[in-house]
């Protein structure tokens, strides 16, 4: 038993949902109690998907436990197949269903369905979300991939992008363009956008690009072993890693692989003088192993930061991250304990955090700027704009991402110069961020005496009530009430006046 406040990863069946939701023509029948449907909103709200995830939950209740949950599973499974007409289904159990041992896989197999039924064994009390996605994708590939001849042209598959992945949508587009530039066609992208029929075609490719090791490595290894497809080991995040990736592809394919670097702006942006102020900024890097490794290199070699600590939450990547930490002369933090990560950051007191949505909260609490570089992320990290992480455009995007939370070079200089100015005080924060500076102004308003400018007096009750309104709308409420009082010719604001005004402005 382990006390957890926040988690970096969901349970493994959420990983399976990420694969199912990424694909087309695949349905997931999940033996699960009421409430597990919460996971749908990860996709519909955080990622803004306009379809429900293709998941049918059996929704068993306490009263079913004494009777027949197995029949309930079979019913749900049959209804899902009839209603959604999938080309293949995956079946499995969430944490609670695992305990009642109904064996969804065995049950589904006895149903005589005419489509492939892929059973999932995802141990909920040992493993987590990334494992669930990786294992699910592996099982799908193992069940559906068919031996066949290689394509005439040099082609590759792109493996690993899922639903709810960090910038996977744009990474697929960017890397497809890069490969096309190198004269390589993409055979299949999977799981994102793939149908079960596409999965069957995977062995036609000459090699695999492993875009996301967290969610695609088992499948890549199996394809290497079973279908002799080599896979790339370098994830092309950052300028150096992208160039190394291109060299790796050249070695695998024997093609010359001369990329077009005309759109790569990051090296100049980093060399230009405004970036002087980035030099030696002390950064702490935390996230999934793949993104942390990539960002350690970017931070030190391409941004000129000083890396004061790195770590990852997925134990599967503990070994490479420990080795990397040694190379950087820092301690590796391998932990999914949010409070431990917070303590580490507090102790190291970096000037910036490159982390996940969780570290953004830590940064907010400790007053340290944070750029989000890895899942788990929140709705604001699914941008409408094209915003890849991989390849040359990815390098440009990352430069912007990393400097955005910071005060710009020239601005930092001015802030030091005008340190004593009330608007330029140290706590004012970067000029392109509204939040913090505004909060300060609000506090100043709070401290003013109860007389407002127009000689309107706030009575005790009304003033007390006003303080209960959240600070970020309190200023507006105060102004509206005073305007209203002035219009009404009142010189005192009572509790009733406050609410009269509220009703007056209600919309």
């Amino acid at each position, binding site marked *: *038993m*382990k*006390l*957890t*406040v*926040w*988690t970096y990863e969901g*349970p493994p069946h*959420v990983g399976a949902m990420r694969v199912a939701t990424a694909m087309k023509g695949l349905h997931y029948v999940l033996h699960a*109690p*009421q*409430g*597990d*449907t*919460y*996971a*749908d*909103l*990860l996709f*519909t*709200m*955080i990622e803004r998907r*306009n*379809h*429900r995830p293709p998941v*049918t*939950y*059996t*929704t*068993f*209740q*306490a009263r*079913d*436990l004494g009777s027949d949950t197995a029949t309930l599973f079979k019913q749900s499974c049959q209804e899902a197949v009839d209603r959604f007409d999938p080309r293949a289904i995956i079946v499995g159990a*969430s*944490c*609670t269903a695992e*305990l*009642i041992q109904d064996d969804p896989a065995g049950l589904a197999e006895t149903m005589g369905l005419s489509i492939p039924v892929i059973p999932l064994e995802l*141990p*909920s*009390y040992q493993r*987590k979300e990334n494992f669930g996605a990786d294992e699910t994708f592996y099982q799908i590939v193992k069940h559906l991939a068919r031996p066949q001849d290689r394509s005439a042209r040099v082609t590759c598959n792109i493996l690993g992008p899922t639903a709810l992945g960090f910038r996977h949508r744009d990474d697929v587009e960017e890397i497809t363009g890069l490969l096309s530039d190198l004269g390589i066609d993409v055979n299949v992208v999977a799981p994102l956008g793939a149908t079960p029929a596409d999965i069957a075609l995977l062995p036609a490719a000459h090699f695999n690009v492993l875009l996301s090791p967290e969610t695609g490595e088992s499948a890549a290894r199996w394809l290497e072993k079973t279908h002799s497809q080599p896979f790339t080991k370098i994830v092309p995040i950052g300028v150096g890693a992208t160039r190394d990736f291109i060299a790796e592809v050249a070695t695998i394919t024997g093609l010359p692989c001369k990329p077009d670097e005309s759109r790569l702006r990051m090296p100049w942006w980093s060399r230009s003088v405004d970036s002087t102020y980035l030099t030696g900024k002390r950064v702490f890097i935390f996230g999934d192993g793949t993104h942390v490794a990539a960002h350690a290199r970017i931070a030190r070699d391409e941004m000129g930061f000083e890396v004061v600590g790195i770590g990852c939450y997925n134990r599967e990547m503990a070994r490479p991250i420990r080795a990397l930490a040694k190379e950087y002369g820092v301690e590796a933090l391998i932990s999914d304990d949010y*409070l431990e990560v*917070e303590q580490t950051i507090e102790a190291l007191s970096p000037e910036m955090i490159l982390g996940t*949505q969780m570290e953004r*909260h*830590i940064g907010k*609490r400790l007053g340290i700027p944070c750029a989000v570089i890895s899942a788990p992320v929140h709705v604001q990290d699914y941008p409408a704009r094209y915003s890849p992480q991989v390849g040359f455009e990815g390098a440009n995007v990352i430069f912007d991402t990393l400097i955005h939370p910071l005060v710009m070079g020239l601005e930092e200089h001015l802030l030091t110069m005008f340190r004593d100015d009330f608007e330029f005080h140290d706590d004012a924060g970067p000029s392109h961020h509204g939040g913090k500076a505004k909060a300060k102004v609000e506090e100043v308003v709070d401290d003013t005496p109860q007389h407002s400018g127009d000689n309107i007096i706030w009575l005790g009750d009304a003033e007390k*009530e006003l303080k*209960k*309104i959240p600070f970020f709308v309190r200023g507006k409420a105060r102004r509206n009430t005073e305007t209203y009082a002035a219009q009404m010719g009142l010189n005192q604001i009572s*509790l*009733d006046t406050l*609410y*009269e005004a*509220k*009703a007056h402005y*209600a*919309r």
Partner: protein
Amino acid sequence: MNVPMPPANGGCRSAPVLKERGQREVFCGLTGIIWLHRKMQDAFFLVVGSRTCAHLLQSAAGVMIFAEPRFGTAILEESDLAGLADAHEELDREVARLLERRPDIRQLFLVGSCPSEVIKIDLSRAAERLSQVHAPHVRVLNYSGSGIETTFTQGEDACLASMVPVLKDTADRELLIVGALPDVVEDQMMGLLADLGIGPVRLLPARRIDDTTAVGPNTVFALTQPFLGDTHAALERRGARHIAAPFPFGDEGTTAWLRAIATEFGVNEATFEAVTAAPRARARKAIAQASEALRGKSVFFFPDSQLEIPLARFLTRECGMTAVEVGSPYIHDALHGPDLDLLPAGPQISEGQDVDKQLERARAARPDLTVCGLGLANPLEAEGLSTKWAIELVFTPVHFYEQAGDLAGLFSRPLHRKSVLQLEAAE
């Protein structure tokens, strides 16, 4: 005067109810922790559950505002499943560690989950044992928020019901108000009751453990939330008597709710008028403004929080909407009856859910506004239906007069937004 008129075509109390069971697109009762831990500021909620429970709590509300919130999950691991004796020892250890780090905690709720219920970890025994260990500083109680037993807001019901047996005894005639409300709303309510001359008024849940909530045979109680069926039963077992009334949403609901209490306490008509006239007029004015966009429009409720029936009553009677279907996870006549009496006949009343079948009905009806959970909202918007996320109705201050306009505003906002966006290609 001011007694709500039953609808001319009859209400919905005796209307046939469509009962369905199948896939339910709802939260489990653990979700209630998100507002309960803010309300009870000296309480900690420890879920004994799985990674799924922890993931739900942080995903459902996106509440990662606090570095260390007053809730957490003791995640069961493989070793805990092997032997139950171990699980209790582990729990004792985690609780001791937690209370040592958080000396401000005065009440600890052990919250059961689906896995803890299935493997039958006896949390009531654990609560008793831990209460003895940590008394008198900390009181340890337990309830279940599991999805196999509770739907969304039933978690608050289970929590409050678990507190009833340990409330102090009283022989005094007191009014007990039951249901967690935002502080600002609770203060308004207390102000209204004080102005009516009603007292003493006690609250469940109280903001802190030391507050003086008590119960006894002379206690009368009113519910502010329509999902407190078990708490209602537990209070009756302690001898308290329920004041049945429509729920205090909108001008009419708030007035009817206050009137039921005023009548119980013999408040005269003149006083009632004097206290309620001004806020009622404000509520009406605010509703009139905020509901302009709602008049003549149809609404379809998916089951979510059990607030559906009182809200449908508000929208149909005070905002001029027509209800197509009003779905509720559970319908409890003693609680929902007064609202059903006032809800004009016509809508399909449904209880429980088979989500795919209900979606088919919504698509066929094409309501102007669909009230549903977060998992369904964007998919329905993509199909051209306007939606209101049901969870906002639970998290936002919406009770009583001064919030009546805001409540109407929550429903009109999606329609208003649809009318202002000009995103289609120019002809």
